[in-house]
């Protein structure tokens, strides 16, 4: 914390002088702070979209799995028709997917990576489609071999949540993103724990354990970013 304060002091000194003459140099400590703050500011600005994506997925989990739970969860007092619940589930996933893609593309505007990172990104993106399709085929094959509709109710959500969790962990490994690692591990845990809650409790469990965790992750990310923005004097925005 003392280090942070020193950095902030040096940075504000740097920023004040910057307004006077940005062609001049400051003392070495202030220059080091200026450099570190600039790097942090750029990284924070580049990642500013992440909490929004995390929040969108948190709400998707709450609403989507919540809708599935409402089919039978509050019986006999209330029942959300299947024909309403499934479109809510699919719709929220599509909206969040589109929103994530749009924000991701927007944050990468004006950036050109090297060919190795383009390859990594493409393979990672395609892996989502391969995995999602493979699980659907795998599930229907199991149903042909006698998996009941009751068991399928547990298989599909857990399989997809498990897959998403592993993909988050892989993303964390590639892009060194700790929140993604935390979120991914949590998804793996809740995916395998969900069936123990039985039907339809497992939907409620996924809605709450997944949704609230992602919303918490989003809030934590926003606070972290605000802290860095304060520390870097509004993003090193001078001159």
């Amino acid at each position, binding site marked *: 914390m003392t280090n942070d304060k020193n950095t902030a002091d040096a940075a504000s000194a*740097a920023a004040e*002088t*910057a307004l006077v*003459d*940005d*062609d*001049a*140099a*400051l003392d*070495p*400590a202030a*220059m*080091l702070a*200026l*450099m*570190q703050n*600039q*790097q942090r*500011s*750029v*990284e924070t*600005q*580049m990642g500013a979209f992440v909490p929004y994506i995390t929040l969108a997925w948190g709400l998707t989990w709450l609403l989507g799995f919540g809708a599935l739970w409402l089919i039978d969860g509050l019986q006999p007092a209330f029942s959300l028709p299947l024909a309403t619940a499934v479109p809510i589930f699919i719709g929220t996933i599509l909206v969040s997917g589109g929103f994530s893609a749009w924000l991701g593309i927007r944050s990468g*505007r*004006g*950036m*050109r*990576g*090297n060919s190795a*990172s383009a390859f990594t990104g493409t393979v990672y993106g395609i892996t989502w489609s391969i995995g999602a399709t493979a699980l659907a085929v795998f599930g229907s094959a199991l149903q042909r071999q006698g998996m009941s509709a009751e068991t399928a109710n547990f298989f599909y959500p857990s399989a997809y949540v498990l897959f998403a969790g592993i993909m988050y962990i892989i993303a964390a490994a590639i892009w060194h993103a700790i929140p993604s690692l935390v979120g991914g591990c949590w998804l793996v845990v809740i995916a395998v724990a969900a069936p123990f809650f039985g039907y339809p409790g497992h939907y409620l469990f996924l809605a709450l354990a997944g949704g609230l965790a992602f919303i918490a992750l989003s809030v934590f990310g926003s606070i972290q970013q605000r802290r860095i923005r304060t520390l870097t004097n509004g*993003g*090193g*925005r*001078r*001159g």
Partner: protein
Amino acid sequence: MDELDPVIHAQARLRIMAALSTLELDGSISFPRLQELLDMTAGNMSTHLRKLEDAAYVDITKTHKGRTPITYLGLSKKGRRAFEDYMDTLRTVLGEQP
């Protein structure tokens, strides 16, 4: 070794170099996006970029997106090395382990 590279040792150019150093190896960023991230005026940024380009620290690539010309900027190998040396020297001057 204790001499700080005068090309980098100016606030505006240090900020540009620091921002470019966050890009991946051989990565580049468009002029307007860098300007937005640094919140510098176009004229000021151009002036300092010219000095960095003269020292061959920055690679400048001009290309087109449709009919719009775009300028991409990235650290050259020499620039990346110079930036690392600058940081090491700065830390040595401050009595830290480089």
